[in-house]
């Protein structure tokens, strides 16, 4: 399967599910799907198209919280990124970990760092942060303010750079 075939096949199989398609270069494809379709899209990419999961990146943007699922097509030097947008006030999505074990840890990471709820995750608990991390504080959100143990605000290097 070469790169053109991958792009064509992905378009054909996913069909209506794709709400935006962008071929950035011949080796990089970005597409967007509804968050409700993610389980089916993951199943198709993993089982039918035999793609390999790189990782997922969660991004906090002004429009909402984005999850980017990066997939590798190793046979043809192509990286496919599936984008889905979640409501910032109630970020919730179906967990793909029961389908694909490789997603188990990254979903735990996105849950604790960005506050995305993964429904039906087999083992949703802290991965990187300490077990008694305060609920409702998500360090990778844009509005997160780090606090010292005494409750005082800590200046991040980013804030200092802005003030300069």
């Amino acid at each position, binding site marked *: 399967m070469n790169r053109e075939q991958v792009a064509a096949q992905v378009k054909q199989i996913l069909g209506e599910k794709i709400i935006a398609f962008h071929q950035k270069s011949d080796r990089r494809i970005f597409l967007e799907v509804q968050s409700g379709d993610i389980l089916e899209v993951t199943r198709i990419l993993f089982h039918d198209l035999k793609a390999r999961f790189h990782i997922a*990146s969660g991004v906090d943007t002004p429009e909402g919280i984005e999850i980017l699922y*990066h997939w590798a097509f190793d046979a043809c030097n192509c990286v496919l990124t599936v984008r889905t947008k979640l409501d910032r006030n109630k970020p919730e999505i179906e967990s793909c970990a029961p389908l694909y074990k490789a997603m188990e840890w*990254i979903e735990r990471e996105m849950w604790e760092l960005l506050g995305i709820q993964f429904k039906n995750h087999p083992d949703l608990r802290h*991965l*990187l942060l300490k077990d008694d991390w305060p609920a409702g504080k998500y360090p*990778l959100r844009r509005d997160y303010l780090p606090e010292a143990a005494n409750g005082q605000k800590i200046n991040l290097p980013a804030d200092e750079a802005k003030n300069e």
Partner: protein
Amino acid sequence: MSKRSIIPIGPYHALQEEPEFFKLHVEGEKVVGLDIELGYNHRGIEKLSESKHYDQTVFLVERICGICSTSHPIACVQAIEDAGDIEVPERALYIRSIIGELERIHSHMLWLGLAGHFLGFNTVWMWAWRHREEVLNVFELITGNRNHYAMMKAGGVRRDIKAEDIPTIKKMVADLKAPLTLFKKTVADDPVIQARTKGVGVLSAQQVIDYAALGPTARASGVKIDVRRDHPHAAYGLVDWDVITAQNGDVFDKAVVRILEMFESIRIIEQCLDKLKTVTGSVDSNPKEVKPGEGVGLYEAPRGEVFHYIRSDGTNRPARHKVRAPSFMNVITDREAVIGHTVADATIILAAVDPCYCCTERMAAVDVYSGRRVFTAADMIKCSQQKTAELRKKLGAHGPKLNIA
């Protein structure tokens, strides 16, 4: 029902470089479960990276790991170049590959030495680390540093390799072949190493696919993936080399794959050095800005694929920088590989994926019912080394032959 105990290994891991916490669930000698806890080394690098400009970002990610310290920078600059459509001069690509492959050799040697130590072959450990020093000497010659080479930047590399240094570097690299051949023979011929590693910690090809495991961990199970071949970057598409695979997925095959890979690395380095004689010009395209966009950078680190994602909003800082190290995908496979083995074997199985080494030795086994300490860190390694000693006695062997001329 037999009594189940939990052996906590960590948080400062006696065997591996990162503080990670393994809880071995054992019934008698047999391991029946594994719980892995991470996060003792979480430094918030992704968040920190958003406050750095692109040149600083590369230095920051170089500090993620002390052993594969050029893997993250290569993946990171490639992500920046991908996002901003930045060209890289051909000469810089060869230099990137040379640095990357030298690093693979010293990283694999470090692992080989440790694996030897855990099995009770301290001679292998001493010799592997002695010859690793020679690789670091090459680094010192090229970059001025023995570790953290600071060579990568978006658009090229920071230092050129001088023409007059090439013969010296070639000689130093060629001199590595003799000790590598020695290690190859030691692992292949020694009956005790085979008895300790063959059929131990097996990961099937299907498990590799299910967990998306990477690097030598995947290739030892017969899954032929290597980002250097599959997604050519740096100079890997321009030189001739082979992807090494093995079939059994046990600790032995993981060692074999790593040893044979070092020979391929030498092949790559030699070809790249030859190319440097004819490919001349600048080593840096000196990009002035990174235009808005998204980019992905892949690099095959010694442990497997490193993945970087960069989103640029047109400013001089990344709007989002995602980093995924190979151990993130590989360590979780331990929970499949370790089940059913003995505690003595767990030591080497947990080390076999080569999870990324620098921590204090502190390990304790606690009887969950009485809370009494039954094992210490030293006991755990002793336990593994003892097994080797017993095997050695049984087989009448006397350990690896290391006849150094």
